């Protein structure tokens, strides 16, 4: 992309509220126009980022995503609309961004970011914005940014809390300085399990967008060396000092990471080929079989191990609610000798419940495969999915 040295008449009108501020002005707007920003992920964080960075007049915006818009995205991913459900997120996001600002060059990277392609994709951009939703990709983005010496504008969210900072900028601390290793799978709940306030990624994504624009313009104090914590419920912003770890494996004095590694393995996440959950197949029961047993009036207890607020969304008639976390202290409510079927939303928590009950001496315990989602798909479509 050849460097732009002037703005058209239409652009001058469009960016007039920038141009009249001396901190931006013509010089700053041209910096924005000549900037190349890569957004990794067109989800909760990527949505506000895409909207506002396009509006701000960034010259080239790349977007990495291979997902498809679904109904559960719309509560927070405001770049997509109801009409976009089923469409590729890239396509849907670009339609919106192109409508907001046709002067932006949009580049699609319809792929899963990987150790094989990250450096190749990143090399054509000045700033990388991490809007991903999982640990392997976060470490991958970090290491690739450190290796290429490109700033990593970081944001992450959980329920009502968010974090934001700028990593790996001009020798500043990186993600591994903050967290050398990821949590093992299962120890930290994901947003799909834990939920997220729909507005939260808007706030955090726009902090990332603000930092991106400041980096390009070279104005203000960026979040380099500071970790911003946001608590939506308390409506509090807190700031922690972020220090460069001299022993950091990615950016320390004796760095050991000199090329991209296998991040899926590093994060302890099983590869796609691996079975999804360590569930003993013999302990499974199909939803249809549970339905037959219920209709027949078989003597068994159907235990719903989800949380009370999930029970309020939908339930299987005749089920007993004992949340997984309460199972140890409420195990006495169940008869060791009677037959028990456990279920949850999709089968993972109830598998843990089955393991726990077996260890507690229960003999006839089975896990309903696929949880209440599968029940809705295969038995009773009137049960809402969430």
């Amino acid at each position: 992309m050849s460097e732009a040295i002037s703005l058209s008449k239409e652009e001058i009108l469009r960016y007039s509220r920038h141009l009249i501020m001396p901190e931006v002005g013509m010089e700053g707007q041209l910096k924005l126009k000549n900037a190349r920003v890569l957004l990794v992920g067109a989800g909760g964080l990527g949505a506000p980022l895409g909207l506002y960075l396009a509006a701000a007049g960034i010259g080239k915006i790349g977007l990495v995503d291979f997902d498809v818009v679904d109904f559960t995205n719309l509560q927070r991913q405001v770049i997509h609309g109801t009409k976009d459900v089923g469409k590729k997120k890239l396509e849907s996001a670009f339609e919106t961004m192109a409508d907001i600002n046709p002067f932006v060059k949009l580049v699609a990277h319809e792929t899963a970011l990987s150790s094989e392609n990250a450096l190749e994709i990143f090399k054509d951009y000045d700033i990388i914005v991490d809007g991903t939703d999982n640990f392997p990709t976060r470490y991958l983005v970090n290491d690739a940014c450190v290796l290429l010496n490109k700033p990593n504008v970081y944001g992450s969210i959980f329920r009502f809390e968010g974090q934001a900072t700028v990593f790996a900028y001009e020798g500043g601390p990186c993600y591994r300085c903050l967290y050398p290793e990821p949590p093992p799978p299962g120890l930290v709940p994901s947003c799909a399990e834990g939920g997220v306030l729909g507005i939260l990624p808007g706030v955090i994504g726009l902090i990332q967008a603000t930092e991106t624009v400041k980096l390009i313009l070279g104005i203000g104090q960026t979040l380099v060396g500071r970790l911003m914590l946001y608590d939506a419920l308390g409506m509090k912003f807190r700031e922690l000092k972020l220090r460069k770890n001299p022993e950091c494996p990615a950016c320390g004095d004796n760095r050991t990471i000199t090329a991209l590694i296998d991040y899926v393995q590093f994060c302890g996440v099983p590869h796609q080929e691996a079975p999804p959950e360590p569930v003993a197949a013999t302990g499974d029961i199909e939803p249809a079989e549970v339905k037959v047993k219920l209709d027949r009036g078989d003597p068994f207890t159907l235990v719903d191990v989800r949380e009370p607020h999930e029970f309020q969304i939908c339930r299987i008639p005749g089920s007993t609610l004992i949340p997984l976390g309460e199972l140890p202290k409420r195990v006495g409510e169940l008869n060791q000798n009677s037959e028990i079927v456990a279920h949850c939303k999709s089968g993972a928590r109830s598998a843990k419940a089955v393991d726990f009950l077996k260890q507690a001496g229960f003999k006839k315990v089975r896990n309903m495969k696929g949880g209440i989602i599968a029940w809705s798909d295969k038995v009773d479509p009137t049960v809402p999915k969430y």
Partner: protein
Amino acid sequence: MARILIPTPLRQFADKKDSVELPGTTAGEVLTALTERFPDLKKHLYNDEGKLRSFVNVYLNDEDIRYMKKDTTPVNDADTLSIVPSIAGGRLKQGAIRV
């Protein structure tokens, strides 16, 4: 008594509390008091060797105790300790690197 802030992902192991006041003159003592009060928190904060997990950071006010005196960092009554775990944000489909 120092105040210790408990982040959202760990509140389920701490009676859903967002902060507690606990006795202790060092960061280590306050953390020990915390895990004594909420034993379920222990495995989320410490590994099998009894060391703080590498995805859990503890701050005294705005400073990471790793760059102070770690567990022996002195704590005063007016101080606030924060537990700041790493969060990825979003969902992780099994096995797939998703973006």
